[in-house]
């Protein structure tokens, strides 16, 4: 127990030192440099670069099959890239260390949940392996009510609607107060209330110095939510920058198609 606490303190101290020592560099919460990934020998991602700075909500755009999900999976350690110059999350090299996992919240494209547990059981267990130690019960109750799940907290998950399941998956993302969240199409199936909640939680994260990377096809949402975006086309980053720059006076939709059209 004490050992664990010491390790925790030491680890955060190191992060702190690293952060101070490297000054600007750690302002990049997510760094992907020249990454390529393949499935069974077929290249799905050829050359992707992404930089997400501190306090930034970063949008990841691209047509179906462009390589967004593949990129995201590499970032959270679910897939190994063939080649990458730099792959860092929270200043930590994803390929050589797993400590960064304590700081991230991840939502997959198709979140599959344990059908036969109740949301409360599932979240409680997750909070435990996530080392949420203080006021665990209160935390679970809070998360359930935050995501509007208090009424279904003790039903088994298989009975719940798609949107409710998406809310549970999102609750797992924010459960342990992550510094960085990586969300693959988070708004699918969510009602307007749920979407607003996610936006609020995201702004809370960036206000406290965190960051977020979000893939989405909803251009109007991306436009309002994200400061910067990266567009991936056929496995390559074709452009990256602030929404304002990229729009250049046009709507985001027009800009998106003209950029992709030129690629």
């Amino acid at each position, binding site marked *: 127990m004490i050992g664990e606490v010491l390790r925790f303190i030491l680890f955060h101290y190191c992060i702190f030192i690293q952060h101070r020592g490297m000054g600007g560099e750690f302002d990049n919460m997510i760094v992907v440099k020249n990454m390529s990934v393949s499935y069974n020998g077929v290249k799905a991602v050829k050359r992707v670069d992404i930089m997400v700075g501190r306090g930034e909500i970063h949008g990841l755009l691209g047509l179906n099959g462009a390589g967004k999900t593949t990129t995201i999976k590499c970032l959270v350690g*679910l897939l190994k890239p063939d080649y990458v110059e730099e792959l860092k999350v929270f200043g930590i090299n994803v390929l050589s260390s797993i400590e960064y996992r304590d700081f991230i919240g991840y939502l997959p494209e198709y979140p*599959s949940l*344990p059908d036969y547990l109740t949301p409360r059981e599932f979240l409680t267990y997750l909070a435990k392996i996530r080392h949420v130690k203080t006021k665990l019960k209160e935390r679970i109750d809070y998360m359930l009510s935050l995501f509007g799940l208090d009424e279904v907290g003790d039903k088994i998950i298989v009975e719940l609607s798609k949107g409710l399941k998406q809310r549970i998956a999102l609750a797992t993302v924010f459960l342990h107060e992550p510094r960085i969240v990586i969300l693959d199409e988070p708004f699918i199936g969510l009602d307007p209330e749920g979407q607003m909640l996610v936006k609020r939680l995201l702004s809370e994260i960036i206000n406290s110095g965190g960051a977020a990377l979000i893939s989405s096809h909803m251009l109007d949402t991306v436009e309002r939510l994200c400061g910067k975006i990266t567009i991936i086309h056929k496995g390559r980053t074709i452009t990256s920058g602030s929404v304002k720059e990229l729009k250049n006076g046009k709507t985001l939709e027009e800009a998106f198609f003209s950029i992709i059209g030129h690629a």
Partner: protein
Amino acid sequence: MRKIITILAFKLAQYYGPLRYSNYSKLLQVLLYFLMVTTSLFTAALTRLLLVQNENYILAVVVLSISIILLLGIYLGVKGGVMSLQSEIDFILVSNVKPRNYLLADLIFQLILLNSILTPSLLVFILIISRTTITNLINTIAMFELTILAAVMLSHVIGLRKSLENDRKVNYVAAALAIVFLFPVFLMAVDAVEFVDYTPLPQVILAKNMMGRGVVFDNLAVVVFFLCLLVIYYKTVNHLSSLVVVTPLLKTALVEVGGVKIVKIPSLLSIRVDESVLISGIKLHVIRIIRDRSILMVSLVALIFLMANMAFSNLMGDSGFSDLAVVTSTILYTAFIPAVLSINWGLFERDNLWVFQVVRDGIRRYAVSLMGSYFIVALLFSFILYVIAYIISGGTPFLVLDSLLAAAIPVFSSLSSVFFSFKLPRPGNVFSVSTLLHILMPMIVSVIFAFPVLVVRTSATLASEPPIPLVILLMAYLIGTAYVVYRRVIGVVVSSV
């Protein structure tokens, strides 16, 4: 006709999809066939040797094999009967395809599927055990195919009736049929095997014909049986105006989650905030095993093994196969329990691993608690079966060794089940190749690791009064091996996902 072929081709392409794309799957398929054929050759030869030519016993064993096929049909029927994959449910069942055409395609599909599983196992077994002559070969194979056809038709009728009328009523009828099909087993269990010959049940008549022992009456009876079945089948299918009501089979796991009703969990199992992560994890897995009804399947499997063992020991009565062996072999079968559990795990839980993969140390904790829950369930059943077998066989002098075995088998089978559930391709459905491997492999592995105990157990002089140093040595061996295997499995599991 073209429609039927198109649907059938679609079903086959879906079902055998993995075989088309992955060499690994092909290899597994070959391995599985090899295992099945050699196991049935071996079992048949052994049984034949032990049964010493007693025709009554041989008939009984063949009847048993046929009963198994028919019971499989009933089981499939109770679970829905029609085998539709998710894509068929979403796109074909809602289209304007005629129910008759779809069902015929499914009938052929199931014939192919069951043949691919039963031919290398049961047919090989029957051919060896009944010492079929070349002239009778055609006859045997024909009867075997008729049996499979009957099983598929039964499965369709029961499944469709379930969606057409009162679910519960059909379940009762299915249960009654199952009892009828199990009747010869009951005769064997009470050591009245010579009466099997005189029971005018379809499976007995089929078996007699199969062995070339059928008289004119028997041939007639087979014809009448199939005519009845055909009429019922035709009437059922004609009732069906749309396929939308069909409850598909392949979607569901080993055990049906009937009307989703949350099962009451004893408060001992509900997770608490202040307990360790490991305990919570084990509890949650046990809760899932109870809620997704895997526990029912496990109980059923245990019951079948107990009965089969008793029937077998009665059959072997004359040949010196001791009652005591029942205890040991019953314990050996508990290796199946974690294996059966891991199938539902593969169907329901494997997709959820992402949750734990993105947590530091999440997969290790998850896998350890999974092993823990398998071990607890297996140990519980192993203990219950042990006590029952012990009482039935009137006690055993091999208390020490059998208890060692009763603890060792659950340990090794839960370790290896977790290993194989992470390493083997996920079971596509209940009847896929990998499903069978998920069941077979842990069984084989646990027997291998518990082998030293088995060796001592089979040596009569050592087994009745094992010297204490030997017992200590065996215990040390078991604990040491279990630890090494545990470390290895955890290492592989953590690095494999």
